[in-house]
């Protein structure tokens, strides 16, 4: 048993997502935790703590304000929030949550993005937050647009926000994408569809009126469940 529950994650090679064919490892992964069984107490690599290492500023989680001063980005302002927890449902406090995304027109600030849609001078499309003691994070941002990509003819990415989470230990590391409910492109997207069918729902945020702010922004709730901690390694004397 490793920290990643492979019934929830996509396989490395997914032929419908063309880039994966030449980039995913083809040989089986070696189970490092089982190699440590010989000397469990020496697994500092897997036990070293990665939460409460970084600090962010309050402006960092507001993508509607962290661009150049003097203007606001175009688009539908939204709030994205949720709870980071381990796979036993316990809050992960002090986790670093980083996001990046396209603007309302479906264009990234990134120089490699050549989609013929306007950049927004008031939007960087990047933010970060640290989870509070109950595991919660919250971002203010703009709802990202869909955009075309080169995977196949007339391929379009569903609206999404990229997430990177640095949790309690190395094994909990997660990079993922959050999608929006009701997006018709989800059924057609090879990256989303690469996830085992029963697990896909865990990538779709829920509309949340309670998280919304009256006269200001709609709320979307997105909980994040990380891989399990390696307690068995910690508990065994080396």
């Amino acid at each position: 048993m490793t920290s990643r529950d492979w019934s929830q994650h996509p396989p490395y090679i997914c032929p419908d997502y063309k880039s994966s064919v030449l980039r995913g490892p083809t040989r089986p992964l070696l189970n490092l935790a089982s190699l440590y069984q010989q000397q469990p107490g020496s697994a500092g690599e897997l036990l070293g703590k990665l939460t409460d290492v970084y600090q962010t500023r309050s402006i960092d989680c507001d993508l509607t304000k962290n661009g150049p001063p003097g203007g606001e980005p175009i688009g539908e302002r939204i709030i994205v929030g949720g709870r980071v927890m381990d796979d036993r449902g316990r809050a992960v406090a002090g986790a670093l949550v980083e996001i990046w995304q396209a603007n309302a027109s479906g264009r990234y600030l990134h120089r490699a993005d050549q989609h013929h849609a306007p950049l927004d001078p008031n939007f960087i499309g990047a933010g970060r937050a640290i989870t509070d003691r109950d595991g919660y994070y919250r971002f203010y941002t703009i709802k990202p647009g869909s955009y075309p990509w080169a995977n196949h003819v007339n391929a379009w990415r569903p609206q999404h926000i990229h997430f990177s989470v640095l949790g309690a230990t190395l094994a909990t590391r997660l990079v993922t994408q959050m999608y929006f409910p009701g997006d018709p492109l989800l059924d057609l997207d090879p990256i989303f569809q690469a996830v085992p069918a029963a697990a896909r729902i865990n990538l779709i945020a829920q509309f949340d009126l309670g998280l919304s702010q009256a006269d200001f922004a709609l709320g979307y709730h997105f909980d994040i469940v990380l891989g399990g901690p390696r307690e068995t390694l910690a508990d065994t004397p080396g």
Partner: protein
Amino acid sequence: MPSKPIPSQTPSQTIGPFFAQGLTAAQSDYPFDSIIDNTISGPGQVVHIQGRVFDGEGKAADDAMIEIWQADCNGQYDQENFCGYARCGTGYRDDLHFSFKTIKPGNCGVDQAPYITVIVFMRGLMTHAFTRLYFDDEAEANARDFIFQQLPEDRKTSLIAMGIEGEEGLTYVFDIHMQGADETLFFDI
């Protein structure tokens, strides 16, 4: 009382091609700062790590991100005033190398050689891949390392970084091959 349902892990998705504007912004001159850069500082011997990430056709990726995680010079994680975590993209230099300035880690025990954990993220990689960097000038310690000993013989060389004296000082070259005859050994942890 019914027990609480166990929540399912959130599935991984590829980092995609555009992470640099958020995760490695300062390196690539985007107008956002970087909270994690490509430097690890602390007492010990300063070394550089660099390499490229090759796909199944031997093409170097310009949109990979590498993270490293290591112990301090005494082989300790979790030390105050020491953070052994860093990250670097491959697209910020014309030669498509990732590069780190760090300190050489100590060994974490008598049966362990110094090593650095390496995590690969990139467009086309559905979930990140873990590997390890061992040092070529630690042959004796590597042979004693109880993890290294358990690795398949024909994959061991894929984890050895070659030290060279460069302009910046001692640089260990660690190329990562995602596929092919030289495919790097990746771990599940």
